[in-house]
């Protein structure tokens, strides 16, 4: 019998592809849509482990055939959506599927709470500002608080230069670097002369300017917090040089794989400039300052990062000051300040769920001032320790909690006259605090954050509990609404605690509602807020001298609307933003005789910032126009308190950056180019003259205009980079 043909058939059946034997292909087709029935074009539909599949067309429809048989997993992939899998049985049949995909959750793209917060970030999407924007704003001259004054919520108080937010005094705003508190973030200056922020804006990759309703992680600020995040690892070796009309600077970075170190030194001497440009103040020694800083970053372990930063600042100046109590006479005021700040932090994950952040900072600020025969040495030494633990309980739920210890030592050694009469004061304040907060993403579109903060002041022997709630809801792809509410507490000013230790915390309650829409390089944002103050420090007029009578009976309110519009598209190569604030505020605190508008509030504030790039000239031009309605000030010759008004604040600032070479930038700026007269009220005598009236001297800025020119050079191995990213 010839079995060969049978055997061969058997073999062929065993080893041959069974698919080839089945003649019928299976047809798979259908549609791919989302939960709103909107078709998804370009989705990838295929049988897992095979090449067989198809893409969906413009209508979300797809169809393909396969000769495979048996059970397979059908996979459907689409960018931004969770992968879909379904088991199918291929038997030469027709399979029709309606596939509904679910949007995937990505925290980076999910809604975030914007109420009360202006964030500038290099990495996050849908932020209104990039750090570059802060630094290139005309009139700011690279001063972070200065640039933030063009954002809604910040009131322009020219004689101070600090951040006054939504009817709150500048002391109600705190600055944090990498999560730890910074004491004295402003330079020291002569009275009624604007200060500047101490920190170089180039250091920061992220800035959050919170005008209220901020997280439970931060406290001791009745109005707002400024959160600065230092830059990550510098990727290459670099040397930066700067030669300007007011000084010289040099900085270098060395990078070694897992870490980097950067060091900088700045020398500022206003002598040559102030001799040329007319000044309103009578200087004896023009301001001179030195600054050195070192910053270190080192990766540790898998994903840990250790950061350290230390800065040393020394400045001095001397001038003749007129005193309204001694008309016709001058006092010689010499200012000397020495400031050291250091900050170290470590962050990283402990395991899959837990991550830890440890931070410590120390500040020493010593003012050594002399006024004629008086010698005033004021020092502040502060230490802060902080620990934060975060746990990702679930893809959509995060928990943070932590604790903080803060110690402040204030000391004053005042020699009040030529007879060696001293007044020594010392104060130690310790604060222990803890907080817990949870972020819950109910969906990509809706998130809620709630938490609380507890503080105990050892020196005052008082404690407080502050609840905080906020929420954000995404209305559509481009717009969202958010809401924030909370209690905020702050230690009374050390001035008062010197005399009376057992005061209580000052308190504010915020409620904020925010709407923002960001499309295609245009941003619109509107925010409504209401603040209620309680337990503010109050005292009678004479109590300040006697050191008694301080209490927490002060109160106040602030409400208003902030508007912001930014357009980077309409004008080719142009970028502008307009910010407007309406503020209505009154308070009865300190020595106010009754509830009145404070002098640091403007009813209307308007800023227009414009930047334009001209490629053929290799230049960027910028201008800032500011207007603030008249602020009130008190004239003791009047019966009504805070009844006089300063003229409105107006200024137009311009700047120009020119790329001489790829690595050399020439920069020029003029503040108040049209020379508008700024007047900030009057300094009144403390004792009336023979006629019973109080003499006064006008408060004016140090100079009508400020001119600045500088040349910035960046040297790297490749010689290609420059400080274009860090235009000031």
């Amino acid at each position: 019998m010839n079995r060969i043909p049978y055997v061969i058939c058997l073999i062929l059946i065993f080893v041959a592809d069974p698919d080839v034997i089945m003649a019928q292909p299976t047809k798979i087709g259908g549609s791919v849509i989302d939960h709103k029935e909107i078709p998804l074009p370009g989705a990838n539909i295929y049988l897992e482990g095979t090449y067989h599949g198809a893409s969906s067309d413009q209508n979300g429809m797809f169809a393909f055939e396969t000769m495979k048989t048996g059970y397979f997993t059908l996979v459907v992939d689409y960018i931004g959506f969770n992968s879909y899998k379904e088991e199918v049985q291929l038997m030469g049949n027709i399979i029709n599927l309606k596939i509904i995909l679910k949007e995937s959750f990505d925290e980076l793209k999910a809604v975030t709470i914007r109420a009360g917060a202006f964030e500038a970030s290099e990495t996050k999407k849908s932020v209104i500002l990039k750090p570059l924007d802060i630094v290139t704003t005309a009139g700011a001259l690279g001063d972070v608080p200065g640039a933030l004054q063009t954002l809604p919520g910040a009131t322009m108080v020219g004689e101070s230069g600090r951040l006054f937010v939504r009817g709150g005094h500048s002391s109600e705003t705190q600055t944090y670097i990498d999560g730890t508190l910074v004491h004295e973030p402003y330079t020291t200056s002569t009275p009624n002369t604007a200060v500047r922020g101490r920190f170089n804006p180039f250091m920061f990759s992220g800035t959050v300017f919170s005008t209220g309703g901020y997280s439970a992680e931060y406290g001791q600020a009745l109005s707002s917090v400024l959160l600065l995040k230092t830059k990550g690892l510098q990727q290459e070796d670099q040397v930066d040089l700067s030669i300007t009309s007011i000084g010289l600077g040099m900085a270098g970075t060395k990078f070694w794989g897992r870490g980097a170190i950067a060091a900088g030194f700045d020398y500022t001497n206003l002598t040559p400039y102030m001799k040329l440009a007319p000044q309103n103040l009578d200087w004896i020694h023009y301001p001179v300052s030195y600054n050195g800083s070192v910053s270190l970053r080192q990766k540790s372990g898998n994903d840990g990062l250790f950061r350290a930063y230390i800065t040393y600042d020394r400045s001095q100046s001397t001038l003749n000051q007129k005193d309204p109590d001694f008309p016709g006479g001058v006092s010689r005021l010499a200012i000397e300040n020495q400031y050291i700040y250091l900050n170290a932090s470590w962050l990283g994950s402990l395991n899959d769920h837990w991550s830890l952040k440890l931070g410590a900072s120390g500040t020493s600020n010593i003012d050594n001032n002399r006024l004629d025969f008086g010698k005033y040495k004021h020092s502040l030494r502060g230490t802060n320790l902080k620990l934060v633990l975060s746990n990702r309980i679930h893809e959509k739920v995060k928990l943070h909690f932590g604790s903080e210890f803060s110690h402040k030592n204030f000391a004053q050694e005042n020699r009040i006259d030529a007879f060696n009469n001293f007044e020594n004061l010392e104060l130690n304040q310790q604060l222990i605090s803890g907080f817990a907060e949870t972020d819950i993403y109910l969906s990509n579109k809706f998130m809620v954050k709630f938490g609380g903060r507890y503080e105990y002041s050892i020196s005052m022997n008082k404690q407080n509990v502050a609840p905080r709630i906020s929420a954000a809801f995404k209305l559509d792809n481009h717009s969202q609404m958010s809401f924030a509410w909370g209690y905020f507490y702050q230690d009374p000013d050390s001035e008062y605690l010197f005399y009376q230790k057992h005061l209580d915390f000052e308190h504010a309650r915020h409620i904020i509602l925010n709407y923002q829409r960001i499309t295609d390089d245009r941003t619109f944002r509107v925010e409504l807020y209401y603040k209620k103050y309680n337990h503010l420090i109050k005292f009678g007029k004479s109590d300040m001298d006697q050191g008694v009578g301080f209490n927490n009976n002060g109160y106040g309110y602030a409400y208003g609307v902030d508007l912001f519009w930014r357009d980077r598209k309409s004008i080719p190569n142009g970028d502008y933003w307009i910010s407007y604030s309406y503020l209505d505020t009154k308070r009865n605190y300190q020595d106010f005789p009754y509830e009145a508008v404070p002098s640091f509030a403007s009813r209307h504030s308007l800023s227009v910032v414009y930047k334009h790039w001209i490629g053929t000239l290799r230049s960027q031009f910028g201008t800032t126009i500011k207007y603030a309605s008249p602020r009130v000030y008190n004239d003791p010759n009047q019966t009504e308190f805070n009844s006089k008004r300063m003229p409105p604040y107006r200024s137009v600032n311009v700047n120009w950056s020119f790329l001489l070479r790829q690595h050399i930038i020439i920069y020029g700026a003029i503040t108040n180019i049209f020379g508008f007269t700024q007047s900030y009220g009057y300094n009144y005598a403390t004792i009336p003259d023979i006629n019973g009236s109080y003499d006064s001297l006008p408060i004016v800025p140090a100079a009508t205009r400020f001119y600045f020119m500088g040349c910035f050079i960046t040297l790297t191995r490749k010689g290609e980079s420059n400080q274009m990213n860090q235009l000031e």
Partner: protein
Amino acid sequence: MNQIHNKMKNLIFAVILIVLMNGASLLGQEYERAMETAVSDLAECETIEDLQDLANVFKRIGDAEKEEWLPLYYHSYCYTIMSFMSEGDGTQMDEYLDVAQSNMVRLEDLVPDESEIWVLQAFIYTGRLVVDPMTRGQEYSFLSSQSNQKALSLSPENPRAQYMELANAIGMAQFFGNDVSVYCKEAENLLADWDRYQVASAIQPSWGKNNVKEIVQSCHQNQD
């Protein structure tokens, strides 16, 4: 009888062997064929939709052939081109680049010394830069350059790496308003030498010649 039996066994053995071998190389051939078709379709792509469909094809092949690097490479390459072609604000561009970047970890695992994957990485970084040159210029031009240097150190003759270096330099010069004609000679030389580089097979990366042609053309236009 035994002789016939032995012959039978040999025949059966031989048949099984032949069929099995064909089966095995059939699978290999399936991969080669699918890749060849897909790679030649790449030249025909004109719109983002075309590229999306082709990227999907590469993804399927890549998912089925877990040890092959080329499907992943082309998947990323398609998404990178899509990012350059997209309009509007940068969100869509970044999304495409996120997908392109997501394959890099596996590619580095599979073929860390393959020059082409480092050219691809440099290309992705350049894509990031283009989304927001003012903010990302310094960081990403450095990262792109660094990856490309790695590609050149692994294969100094790789014309795609040479093209990437040239394109980055031209882009930077244009942004700062510098004269780009200094790069024309280099572009012409690169075009002339392009075909000297032997591509290992029909499915290995071979793109870039048209891009260099465009540079040379615009050089000649500017000269006239």
